[in-house]
């Protein structure tokens, strides 16, 4: 297992140029308590529009290991074609690594596989967003047991340096980007956090 995992990881390190910005500086954000609950909930609504968007949710499939094809550029909602299984590794290491096709440069060629200079992969099982309600995802994001043991500033930092997340706003081809901008999303996370991470009732 280790051997093929490292091989798969080696292969995804093949890419050289960085089409998607590698690092985004995360601003300090407002101090805790300086943002009202109402403003925090408004920020959450914008965050939910991002996390529930197909560019994000298609790979946040929870206990399933099948990425989804959904959204405007895909027509009907269905699992990724070609019987793709990401496995327990979430990078397809058990059968067909995601990097077999999602490798190197992002592509603008219609229907060709997108890529980022990082492992193309599914999100962790506990980060289940596809088809989930705003309340469920919000509670998940503020629970350290489910969010990778992060406080809100660490969630913002995660957005700042994880290039597969940046791809959502620069997906290329005819793929619809996630709403807003990466910088605005980070700003919303910081405001939501400073408001005490409020969730809809």
């Amino acid at each position: 297992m280790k051997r093929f995992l490292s091989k798969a990881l080696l292969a995804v390190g093949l890419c050289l140029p960085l089409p998607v910005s590698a690092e985004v500086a995360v601003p300090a954000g407002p101090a805790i308590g300086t943002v009202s609950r109402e403003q925090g909930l408004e920020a959450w609504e914008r965050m939910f529009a991002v996390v529930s968007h197909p560019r994000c949710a298609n790979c946040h499939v929870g206990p399933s290991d099948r990425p989804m094809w959904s959204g405007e550029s895909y027509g009907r909602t269905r699992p990724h074609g070609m019987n793709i299984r990401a496995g327990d590794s979430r990078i397809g290491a058990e059968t067909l690594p995601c990097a077999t096709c999602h490798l190197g440069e992002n592509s603008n060629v219609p229907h060709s596989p997108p890529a980022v200079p990082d492992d193309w992969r599914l999100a962790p099982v506990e980060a289940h967003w596809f088809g989930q309600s705003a309340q469920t995802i919000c509670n998940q994001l503020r629970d350290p047991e489910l969010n990778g043991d992060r406080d809100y500033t660490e969630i913002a930092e995660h957005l700042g340096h994880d290039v597969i997340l940046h791809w959502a706003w620069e997906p290329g081809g005819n793929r619809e980007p996630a709403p807003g901008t990466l910088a605005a999303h980070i700003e919303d996370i910081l405001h939501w956090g400073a408001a005490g991470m409020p969730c809809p009732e």
Partner: protein
Amino acid sequence: MKLTVNGAEHSVDVEPEMPLLWVLRDELGITGPKYGCGIAQCGACTVHIDGMAVRSCSVEVGAVDGEVTTIEGLGTPESLHAVQAAWIEHQVAQCGYCQSGQIMAAASFLEMNSEPTDEDIDAAMSANLCRCGTYPRIRAAVKTAAAKLNGA
């Protein structure tokens, strides 16, 4: 730029955006990898980079940072790779167009998973299309090759 293919170093004068498949076929005359769909949806162009299967139609040559192996470098007529031997044993190929991609995909898969179940084989090989429908023989040959690689 320099490119190592099947153990030999080549120098090619191409744009870094050129797909690896174009370089292999048109610049180096290595025609085992086939052009099928051009968008990584059929698998006919599958080659290895440092042992891992990739769709050479969708990898820019400038992004290749490893040794490329094509079907021509997998085994030799005197010393076939276990997957090639199993392919002959099961007489898998019909028209043959997709078969170098199938074999390269299977060889890479068995490096990663040496005791695959039928479900594993289906998951690993479903992205390699065969219009002749040789799938039952592909699955049987992959199982035979796995057993051979495991010393059975």
